[in-house]
C-alpha cells in the first residue's frame, strides 16, 4: 500500500469512493452501535467512576476516591471478590475436566454418540434460565430432592444446602459444572480433528492407550483446552442469574453467594450509586483483562501449535 503508485494505478475518485461507500454502508449499523452503545458508554462510565454520581444528584468529580474506597474501605467488595474467585477457580477446572473426560469417552467410536451428545449438551443450553435456578433452589432446599434421595439411600438427614452459608456457593458451582456440555462439544470437535493415522502410527510404535492419550491427544488438544478455558473463565466472572434467583437478589445467606456482578447490580440498581458501581465495573473489566492476558502469556508455555 505504501509503495509509490504511478498515475495509471490511481483509480478514478468515483471508483475509490464507491468501494469505501459500500464498505462503510454495510458496516454502518455496527459502527453506530459501536460508538453509541459501546464506546460512548464505556467512556462515560469511566468518567462516572471518577465521580460521586448517584440518583440523588449530578456527578461531582472525586478523582480516584471510588477506587481507593473499593481497595481499602469496602468489606463487601472483598467478600464479592472472594466468592467470585472461589467460584471461578472451582467451576472452570471442574467443568473443563468433566467436559474433556466425557468428550474422550464419547470419541471412542461407540454407538449412540449423538444421543449422549445431545443429553449432555441440553443443560448448558437451558442452564442460564430462571427456571433452572428455581429448580436448583428446590433441589438443594432443606426439604429438597437431594435430601430426599440422601434420606432414602443412606438415611442421612441433610441440611438446607441453599440456606447454609458454608454450602450455598458450592451448589452454584455444581450448577455451573452441570452445564459442561458446550465445552464438551468443542472438545469433541477438537478430538475429531486429530488425524486418525497419528494413533495408527503410535500403536504400531507400541504406545499404550494411556501413552497415546498423554502424548498425542492431550498435547494436540491444548489449543482447544486453552480456548475453552478462556471462554469459561470470562463467563464465570460474569455469572449472575442463578445467584440472583437463588438468593432472592441478596447474595445471601450472609453474602456467601455475593457474586461480583450481583454486588455491582445492587450498587447500581438498588442503591443507585452509579459512580461507585461504575468503578466496580471497571475493576471487573481490569480483572478479566488481566486474567485473559495471563492466560495468553501462559499459553506460550503449554499450548501446542502446529506452526
Amino acid at each position, binding site marked *: 500500500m*505504501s509503495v509509490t*503508485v*504511478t498515475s*495509471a*494505478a490511481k483509480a*478514478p475518485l468515483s*471508483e475509490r469512493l464507491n468501494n469505501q461507500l459500500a464498505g462503510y454502508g454495510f458496516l454502518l449499523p455496527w459502527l453506530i452501535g459501536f460508538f453509541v452503545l459501546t464506546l460512548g458508554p464505556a467512556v462515560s462510565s469511566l468518567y462516572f467512576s471518577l465521580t460521586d454520581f448517584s440518583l440523588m444528584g449530578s456527578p461531582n468529580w472525586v478523582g480516584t476516591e471510588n477506587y481507593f474506597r473499593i481497595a481499602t474501605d469496602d468489606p463487601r467488595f472483598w467478600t464479592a471478590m472472594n466468592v467470585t474467585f472461589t467460584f471461578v477457580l472451582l467451576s472452570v477446572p471442574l467443568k473443563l475436566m468433566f467436559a474433556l473426560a466425557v468428550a474422550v469417552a464419547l470419541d471412542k467410536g461407540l454407538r449412540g454418540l449423538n444421543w449422549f451428545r445431545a443429553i449432555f449438551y441440553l443443560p448448558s443450553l437451558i442452564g442460564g434460565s430462571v427456571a433452572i435456578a428455581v429448580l436448583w433452589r428446590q433441589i438443594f432446599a432443606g426439604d429438597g430432592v437431594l435430601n430426599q434421595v440422601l434420606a432414602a439411600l443412606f438415611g442421612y438427614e441433610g441440611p438446607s444446602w441453599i440456606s447454609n452459608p458454608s454450602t450455598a456457593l458450592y451448589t452454584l458451582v455444581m450448577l455451573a459444572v452441570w452445564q459442561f456440555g458446550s465445552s464438551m462439544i468443542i472438545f469433541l470437535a477438537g478430538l475429531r480433528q486429530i488425524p486418525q493415522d497419528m494413533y495408527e502410527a503410535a500403536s504400531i510404535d507400541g504406545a499404550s492407550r494411556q501413552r497415546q492419550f498423554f502424548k498425542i491427544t492431550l498435547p494436540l488438544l491444548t489449543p482447544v483446552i486453552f480456548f475453552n478455558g478462556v471462554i469459561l473463565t470470562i463467563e464465570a466472572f460474569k455469572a449472575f442469574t442463578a445467584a440472583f434467583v437463588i438468593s432472592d437478589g441478596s447474595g445471601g445467606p450472609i453474602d456467601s453467594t455475593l457474586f461480583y456482578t450481583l454486588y455491582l447490580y445492587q450498587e447500581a440498581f438498588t442503591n443507585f450509586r452509579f459512580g461507585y458501581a461504575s468503578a466496580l465495573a471497571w475493576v471487573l473489566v481490569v480483572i478479566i483483562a488481566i486474567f485473559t492476558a495471563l492466560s495468553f502469556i501462559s499459553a506460550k508455555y503449554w499450548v501446542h501449535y502446529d506452526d
Partner: protein
Amino acid sequence: MTTLALNKIEKRYGATEVIRGVDLKIDSGEFIVFVGPSGCGKSTLLRMIAGLEPISGGELQIGGERVNHKAASERGIAMVFQSYALYPHMSVYKNMSFGLETAKMPTAEIDARVRQAAEILQITQLLDRKPKQLSGGQRQRVAIGRAIVRDPKIFLFDEPLSNLDAELRVQTRVEIAKLHADIGATMIYVTHDQVEAMTLADRIVVLRAGEIEQFGTPLEIYNKPANKFVAGFIGSPKMNFFDVTVTRQQAGTTTLGLAGTNIVVPKIDTTVDAKLCLGIRPEHITNDAKDGVALADLTVTHVEHLGGQTIVYGRMADGQSINVTLDGQRTVHPKDTLKVGATLDNCHFFDAAGQRLG
C-alpha cells in the same frame, strides 16, 4: 473490432512485483494461450484483463479504448473459472441467466439466449439441475454456457480443464477449440500445460516471473524458442541441454567441443573458449547415422518402451545426461552404447545468459 492491447501492464502487491511491464497486442478472434510455470502470474494477468484485479501500472485497451477502470461487467468479457464458480444454490438455468437478469434484460430474450447456449453445449436436459447434481464435465459446460449467454467479445479461461480427468480433458479441449471456431470470439486461455497451449493456441504467450519470454505461434515457439527457458518449457519430453565450449572460429563454421567430440556447425557469432548451450529435443536425436551432426556416444542407463516410441535415457562420456526419443520399438538395453546425431536445423544454441543465438 475487439482488439486487446496491454501496454506496460504491471501488478504489485505491496512491494512485490508480480507482473512486470507486459506488452501484448491481440487481434480480434484470436485464440491466445498464456502458458508458464505455476506462480508466474498468468492468473493475475488474466484477472487484470477481466477487471477483477486493479491494474498497478500501464494501460489496458479493449477495442482501442482504455478500460483500466471500467467495471468488469462492462468490458464485454466473460470468464470461465478454474473452479467453475457455479452458484451452488441456483439451477443451471439460473446460473446462466443471473448476469442477464442483473443487466435487466427482458425475460423473453434471457430465455432465448439461455436455451440457445444450452443447445450449443448440449446441456438442455440439465437446465433444471443444481450444480451439485452434475458431473465435472457437465459443470464445465455450464460454466462455459454462463460465459456464452452474455455474448462477450472476449472469453477468458483460467485453467478450465485442470479439474477434469485425463480423458475428459482431451475431449473438452477439442470442444473448446470447436467452440472458438464456431463463435469466433477472442479467447484468452491460461494453462500451465504446454500440450494444451500447443494444441489450442493461435498464438502462445510464454510467461515467467511476470514477464513475457516469448509471444508467437505454437510452431514458432517450438521451432525457434527465444531462450533456454522457453525451449525447456515447451516440448515433451524436455529438450536436452548440453554444455559445449567453442574450440575454433573459422570463416563460415564454428567448432564446438562436446564430451570430447568436435561438432562443426555453421558460423555462430561468438568467441573462442566461450561456454555455450546446445539444445536438441529428444525427438530430434536419431541413431540412424545419416547427415547432420554426430554427437558424442551415449551409454544407455534406462529405457522406456511406449510402444509407438522408445525413450532412451543415457549419459555421455563426460557425464552429461541425454534423452532420446526413438520412433518405433527398438531393442536397446542399459549399458549399451548408442551412436546418435541430429540434423543441424534442429540444433538450438543459447549463450551463457540463455538467449538464443542465430
